[in-house]
């Protein structure tokens, strides 16, 4: 068994290079690869071969980590397409989008301060629906239109949405305790 470290993760797992993903197939391919490259299976081998097997196992796990999460997978597809999502430096989102984000954050803050659990749960539900819709756009941009610039903008939007989701989860957790 050997794996090609220059292959991209989709090729590594034998999956089509797409955003839409058969999660079951990814998991099955991961288990199968992991079983083959796991260092414990190579205990009888030389140090060099053990090290190499460790490298393969790391590559397989890293690939699984990236492909499993929709947002990380989308970022990886952008990377493969040579498009920089500029997550650190692109601050110029549409003002309407940012205003909307501000309003969401204010609503979460208010509900948190007033300890309104049902309000937070409602925000959580609405945000889930919104996130699903945005991921739908992302799938179309990446898989159907190959419009990577538009997809990069959607990835940036999803970063804010995930952060918001995290804020709501934290607020709910804080109120539960």
């Amino acid at each position: 068994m050997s794996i090609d470290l220059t292959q991209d993760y989709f090729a590594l797992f034998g999956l089509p290079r797409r955003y839409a993903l058969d999660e079951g197939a990814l998991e099955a391919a991961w288990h199968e690869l992991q079983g083959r490259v796991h260092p414990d299976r190579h205990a009888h081998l030389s140090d060099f071969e053990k090290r190499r097997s460790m490298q393969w196992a790391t590559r397989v796990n890293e690939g699984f980590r990236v492909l499993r999460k929709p947002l990380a997978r989308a970022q990886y597809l952008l990377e493969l397409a040579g498009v920089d999502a500029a997550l650190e430096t692109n601050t110029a989102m549409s003002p309407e989008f940012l205003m909307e984000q501000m309003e969401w954050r204010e609503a979460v803050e208010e509900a948190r301060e007033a300890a309104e659990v049902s309000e937070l749960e409602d925000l959580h539900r609405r945000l889930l629906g919104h996130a699903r819709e945005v991921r739908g756009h992302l799938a179309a941009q990446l898989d159907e239109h190959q419009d990577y610039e538009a997809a990069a903008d959607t990835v940036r939007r999803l970063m804010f949405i995930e952060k918001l989701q995290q804020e709501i989860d934290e607020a709910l957790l804080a109120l539960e305790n």
Partner: protein
Amino acid sequence: MAYSEKVLDHYENPRNVGSFGKEEEGVATGMVGAPACGDVMKLQIKVGKDGVIEDAKFKTYGCGSAIASSSLVTEWVKGKTLDQALDIKNTQIAEELALPPVKIHCSILAEDAIKAAVADYKKKHEA
């Protein structure tokens, strides 16, 4: 990660938090966001007839460094002309607050917020 004393000071006692009334004369708004951390920053400036920034307010959802960066720039832009405000660089903000490298994007956000607010003012007052 430890915050510098200046960051803590602005974080605990943020200057100029809030918003101006929509109908107030000479108010312009800059909205920016940092995808990497999900921070959102709103910076408003109130510009006098002489073209000097009289007052500034901010609202930021983000980490301590983002809040400190925006709080600091609301102080810095006051008394400056629009062009002088545009001269404020993120490196100055980062240096003043002793931001570590991983928090430099917070100072970039604050610099971009000034630019966005000035652009908004110019857009409203041209023609």
